[in-house]
């Protein structure tokens, strides 16, 4: 496979150093209005950038000590994390915090200087709806399989999955399944690639992947690739780099990655790069952002693009981290 990439024109190579610089520059833009408008995503953004840097082979490109300090400064008494200091605790930012600390091997700091793993676990576990098994994003009650996956992801990294009713949660995921093999945001909702990732990954963490109809789901997922090589998230929608992650990781989990055209997808992702200033966008020629940058790179990693560190298809983190944390 590596042979094929040597034939790629120069401009269709991965612009690794530009991407590293781009991610490093993200926190230096405090004089831009957008920097402040996106503060509610700061911790998530740190996770996206940090993970991309690790996969690009530059794990030390962000200062470790400052990273830990910032993460801990987002934690609340109740154990949950907000997106930035002064922002309310939420499942999404709490999961990002746990993922960041796991990636830079800083659970000890959480124990010594933060509120500790157990309190984080308690915060997350309290968000489970014990009747239906699903999870809310915060105390205000919005429920979504994204939060269920996030809970499973973080709790399993913390070794605290036993705090929640796994069987109930699994039942809930099964209730979200559709005839096409996919999963929706809640029972009755149409299949959506992002939700499929969350459901299949959560089932995998729970050790219940056998519940997935791999053949039917694989077919639906493989149909997400459209002319031009990119993937969309639902039938008859436009392609978008982020689905290089949601669709591809799901295909990987069910062993069907070979059901799409790898080279064409690689070409599509590479065409979405800003090779000069770094970063990856949703489609060629659009504005880049760190979210699409990560999911372009994780997609390339799953496709075994040369020079990238392998990404774990369930956790969306470096495989080496998952092996270390879960003792695999």
């Amino acid at each position: 496979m590596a042979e094929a990439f040597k034939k790629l024109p120069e401009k269709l190579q991965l612009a690794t150093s530009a991407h590293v610089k781009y991610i490093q520059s993200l926190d230096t833009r405090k004089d831009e209005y957008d920097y402040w408008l996106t503060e509610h995503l700061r911790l998530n953004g740190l996770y996206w950038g940090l993970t991309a840097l690790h996969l690009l082979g530059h794990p030390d490109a962000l200062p470790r000590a400052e990273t830990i300090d910032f993460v801990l400064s987002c934690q609340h008494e109740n154990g949950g994390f907000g997106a930035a200091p002064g922002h309310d605790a939420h499942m999404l930012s709490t999961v990002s915090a746990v993922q960041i600390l796991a990636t830079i091997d800083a659970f000890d700091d959480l124990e010594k200087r933060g509120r500790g793993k157990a309190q984080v676990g308690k915060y997350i576990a309290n968000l489970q709806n014990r009747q239906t098994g699903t999870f809310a994003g915060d105390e205000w009650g919005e429920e979504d399989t994204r939060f269920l996956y996030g809970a499973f992801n973080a709790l399993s990294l913390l070794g605290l999955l036993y705090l929640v009713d796994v069987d109930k949660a699994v039942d809930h995921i099964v209730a979200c399944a559709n005839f096409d093999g996919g999963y929706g945001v809640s029972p009755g909702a149409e299949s959506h690639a992002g939700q499929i990732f969350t459901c299949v990954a959560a089932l995998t963490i729970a050790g219940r992947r056998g519940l997935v109809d791999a053949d039917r789901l694989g077919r639906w997922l493989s149909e997400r690739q459209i002319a031009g090589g990119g993937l969309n998230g639902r039938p008859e929608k436009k392609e978008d780099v982020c689905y290089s992650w949601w669709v591809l990781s799901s295909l990987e989990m069910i062993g069907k990655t070979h059901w799409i055209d790898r080279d064409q997808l690689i070409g599509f992702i590479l065409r979405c790069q800003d090779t000069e200033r770094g970063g990856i966008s949703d489609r060629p020629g659009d504005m880049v952002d760190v979210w699409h940058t990560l999911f372009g790179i994780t997609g390339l990693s799953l496709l075994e693009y040369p020079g990238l560190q392998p990404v774990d298809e369930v956790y969306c983190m470096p495989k080496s981290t998952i092996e270390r944390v879960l003792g695999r």
Partner: protein
Amino acid sequence: MADQGGSQHGIARTSRARTDEQRTLDLERIQKYHLLEEEIRSHVSQHNYTPHVFQLTSKLLKLNPEYYTIWNVRRRLLIYGLFSKPSAGSLPSTASPTSSPTATTTTSSAACSSSLSTATPPAPGPQTAGRSGTTADDNNNTEETHGAAEEGNQQNDLNIIKTELGFTIPLLLESPKCYWIWSYRLWILQQAIDRLPVLVARRIWEEELGLASKMLTKDRRNFHAWGYRRHVVEQLESSQLGGKSMAESEFEYTTRMISQDLSNFSAWHSRSKLIPRLLDERKADDAAREMLLNEEFGLICRAINVGPEDQSLWYYHRSLMLNLVGFVGHPTITPAFSRDDRVTYVVREIEGIKELLEDYDDVKLIYEALIDYTLYLCQLLGRQPDVTEKQAMTEWLAMLKKLDPMRNGRWNDLERDCGLLNGGRRPKVVSIDVGQGQGQGE
């Protein structure tokens, strides 16, 4: 981590360089933004749950509807300040509420970051009283003063709820994919159920269907709006709003959406979920069920005849076919069909699709369906594909590989699994129990 808020979608790449003028402008905007933020934080840390602070949150949310913490501040302002306190039913707290928080917050001093303790009940204390129990129509003659106060409270809460629903509309129209606005709106609607008489709350919820329709007219596939519609319908059907099933009217809605745009898979999906319920509620007999199945096949086949390249249509067609073959343990349209009935229908569909090839010989979805449905037929008959079928499938597979080389990995697996390789193993035909025709779904 699966939150897309704040990411750039579909915005053309431009040079990142700003002129000095733009830079100065940015700095001014940042300063204003921070001042506003600071002002809110400082008020909240002093528990000033006043209309003034409420206005400040409106201002900030208009600048940034993604700022979820501010939506939460707004909720707390309502609960602890502006909504009436049902527990103190004798105190008409309609007019300008004072800044006396109901000391249920934790003592944490971290400004608006002070979440309400570690417990996570979505509905903190005040609203539990006054819900459902004594509604206007019950009119169980307790003290009249109490009743008057309660009425005043409800009027106050009704006004707030209506204002809040109005506030979020322009924000939703501008940011239709912003999770936080949708979730706040649903929370407000929940307040209507918790604080208002059933009939009043119901009228408010009924209007939400109009919003869902409006959003779906703007973007027919917005899954936030579809999800919202599903939720609204569920609530309207529930006993807490004195509701009854809306399966019939929702079914009609999908018919309208489909007639405007055949390619709307969201509408087809919704339809597939509604049909089993619809039939149960109609107490449809076997003949009525078969008639509906025929109507659906007719509708979808006419659509496929016009647009055989459209995946949405084939997904729906396949869902009907699965009703015939994979029906055990699922809600189904025709549970009483015998195996022969099922075979007849599958054969009829296969023949119809073969006819399509006369007009469209280069549409891969047709070949895919032919292979699938041939395998379905074999499943039903509990046998392997015969020589003729194998030959046909080999030809169709060759077309798939030619027309859709992107998915050759899949076609190769299919070829192997169907035993179409030279000397290949026996095909993977899953045996299903067709004797269980009574297994009618929910």
